[in-house]
């Protein structure tokens, strides 16, 4: 009988895990420095949390893992968490609503079915949410935090693309699409169909001009936005508020020294977004994204609380972050082998080494350790210790713990 791994799921190997932890640690460290606090929500949530209007598109709902669990006699379905933000919003409503502003972060796995079985159905993400504030500064803070993490991970050429859900929605309304039609087009954009907006047509020529301008804008500065506004505001004054907000965010991001590109058609994301939507790329890899979702918490039955957040995609980052993590730990790793009669002293010296910050691995079989720089033989007669540097081949015989540590430190 062959034992198989579940289709669409993957193991994380020891090497990958080291990389995973490095990314996670960097993310945690930066978030803590920015004043965010870590939370963790359950793997199972009730389905209705995600079916509520305006939380996930039907296209996403069709791909979530939902089932009746042991308590399912009441008809209540549960899901494997398909998204990190909604559970955190639920948690905020349940236990944190009293504090006005909450800066929260988490590292979690999310589950989404993929028909082909080629893409992973379980993905990991590092997410941060800034709840309780609505200002261009807050949006800019999240963008800056995300970029800070990516830079610390050593990623170069990070590209930031910004769109605006509020502006897209106002535009669709202006073009007098029916409500369901607006939902449909917005969903198409959210599902990543960049052509959806480009195909918009209107029979009013004066609107068409402004529309072409808005959709075609792929500018790089807030000044560009201001110019656009000057052109559009006459025909579509309804858009002013959203354009103002968009411009302010762009200016803020610019002042922080981030490079970015405005692209309204890049609005892929979640239906709960109401304001800015942003995506982070490294080359062609979409490595993270987020946005403002002011309506989510009230829709879920909470107070009228604005919020915004982002997530970095850990699985994709793991492929890009190329650091020789193993090589780093090798020099700290000592394989301790024991000759008969010296077991007790081997355990003792291994303990000393660990205290001193080294990895001491007991060699229990005949196999020689492969990924460590040091070998230590422990004997019950003189010389009690023989330390070998595997890189240089140099062998030293010593009698005390202190001498071993001195030798290791020397290198």
């Amino acid at each position, binding site marked *: *009988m062959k034992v198989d791994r579940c289709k669409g799921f993957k193991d994380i190997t020891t090497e990958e895990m080291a990389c995973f932890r490095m990314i996670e640690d960097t993310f945690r460290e930066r978030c803590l420095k920015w004043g965010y606090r870590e939370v963790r929500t359950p793997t199972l949530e009730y389905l*209705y949390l995600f*079916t*509520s*209007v305006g939380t996930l598109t*039907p296209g996403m*709902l*069709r791909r979530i893992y*939902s089932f*009746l669990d*042991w*308590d*399912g*006699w*009441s*008809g*209540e*379905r549960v899901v494997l968490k398909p998204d990190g933000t909604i559970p955190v919003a639920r948690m905020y409503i349940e236990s944190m609503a009293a504090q006005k502003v909450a800066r929260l972060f988490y590292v979690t796995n999310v589950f989404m079915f993929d*028909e*082909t*079985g080629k893409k992973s159905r379980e993905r990991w993400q590092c997410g941060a949410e800034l709840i309780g504030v609505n200002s261009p500064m807050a949006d800019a803070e999240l963008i800056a935090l995300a970029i800070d993490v990516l830079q610390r991970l050593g990623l170069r050429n990070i590209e930031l693309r910004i769109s605006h859900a509020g502006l897209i929605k106002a535009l669709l309304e202006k073009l007098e699409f029916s409500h369901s039609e607006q939902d449909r087009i917005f969903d198409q954009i959210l599902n990543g169909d960049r052509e959806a907006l480009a195909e918009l047509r209107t029979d009013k020529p004066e609107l068409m001009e402004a529309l072409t301008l808005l959709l075609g804008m792929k500018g790089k500065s807030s000044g560009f936005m201001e110019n656009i506004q000057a052109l559009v505001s006459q025909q579509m004054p309804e858009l002013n508020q959203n354009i103002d907000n968009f411009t302010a965010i762009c200016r803020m991001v610019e002042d922080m020294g981030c490079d970015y590109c405005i692209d309204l058609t890049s609005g892929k994301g979640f239906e709960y977004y109401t304001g800015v939507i942003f995506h982070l790329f490294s080359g062609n890899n979409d490595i993270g994204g987020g946005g403002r979702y002011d309506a989510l918490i009230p829709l879920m039955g909470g107070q009228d609380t604005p919020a915004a957040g982002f997530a970095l995609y850990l699985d994709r980052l793991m492929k890009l972050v190329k650091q020789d993590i193993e090589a780093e730990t090798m020099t700290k790793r000592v394989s301790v082998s024991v000759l008969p009669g010296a077991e007790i002293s081997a355990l003792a010296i291994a303990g000393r080494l660990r205290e001193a910050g080294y990895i001491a691995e007991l060699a229990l079989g005949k196999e020689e350790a492969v990924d460590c720089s040091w070998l230590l033989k422990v004997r019950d007669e003189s010389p009690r210790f023989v330390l070998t540097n595997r890189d240089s081949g140099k062998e030293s015989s010593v009698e005390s713990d202190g001498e071993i540590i001195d030798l290791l430190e020397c290198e």
Partner: protein
Amino acid sequence: MPLKIALPKGRLLAETARLLERAGWGLDDYHDKARCYRLKSQRYPGLIIKVFQERDIPIQVAIGNYDFGICGLDWVEELLARYPSSSLVRVKDLGYGSGAIYAATAENGSATSIEELVKSKGNIRIVSEYPNLAESFAERLRLRRFSIYSLWGAAEVFPPESAELVLLPSKTDNELSAKGLMAIGKVIGYGACLIACKKSLKSKDVAEILGSVMDSLHLVSKSTVSKKYKEASQVTGGRYIKETGNDVVRLALPDGHQQSHVRHILESAGIEIEDYPSATGNRRPTSSLDGVCIKVIRPQDMPLQVANGNFDLAMTGRDWLTEHLEQFPSSPVREMLDLKYGRVRIVAVVSKDVAADDVDGLRQICRRGEKPYRVASEYVNIADRYARDNHLGMYRIIPTWGASEAFLPEDADLLIENTETGGTIARHNLKIIDTLFESTACLIGNTAGIKSSVKSERAAYIVGRLKKAVGES
């Protein structure tokens, strides 16, 4: 490899038989009264033909057990709604058996349009034999909160008291209003269709068989086909008496062949009941009991419906109660009284050719086998528990919807089934290797769920009467 085709029992049987007759297949025994599930074709003697419950056919074709099947598109869509990546191909609509799945509410229910439903703040209970279609329908509508109750049948009797919305098949919406329902949306249209397994189409020579079916379709013009539609059977929904308040006890009685037993017990308990069993298909009989609302539903559906509070008392089988508790151990439903009729054994069955006489022998066979061991049953959770407890290794549960004997030996290796005398099992060349438990009819209830004291007195009164009637008190 010979070609294999799965043909439907039930609603599509007559038309399918006529179609294949025109195609010159010369089937030996394909009609309503047939007791055999394996057919022979004179024209294609090498073809392996088996008759299934319609609902099983898309699954059998999708997993590659059968190359072709004929069934309603509704069951195909039901499968694809949940498993979009399944390897099922629609080859041809056959032009008969058409109808639609409607979303309907009670004519006198609270929400009478999709808009009202969408706006509704409370939980929307949706019942259907098509739970997957129901779920995707609810998602498309963006209902904020809903629960889906999968049913074996009798969906039409649930609204308005026991469900806000029902998804059910119907030929016309007039047929629905005869049942006291009102269509508020059409979910999908369907008709009989020929389906195939993707792999078979790629790798097998199917041209001749397919050709014969296609040719026979051309023999009939559309108008003659449509004339052959059966007229909608006249089913009356029964009088719906609006009894509001928390004091009404909701009692579920079974449909099907046990109805005369139930009537007998009720009569010996001094409870008079009218129009049960009903010649017209009425599912709301009336009784001499005050403050009791009775509905006739499938015994399979009762434990779940009692658990979620749609019914307070129900007469079902211990087999279905056990099945329910295996799936939901935290369910509040309990057996309140053994009604001592409808005695069956739940047994483990294999083909006579299998070299095992008990479950230990079976385990040895499973250990040696390369392929997953296929366990077919209507009792999915009982079968799962049995396979797990007996360490049958890499096994798979195949859910069936009746006529399960037909699965052995080609399409399943083990069957968990109920039997009264063992006659059917022996006739299909099968043998019993284990008895799981004995089941009789029982009264089930959720007494913890009853809040009103008037109601709990009423329920206790019924239980007391029935206890005397079956000689327990």
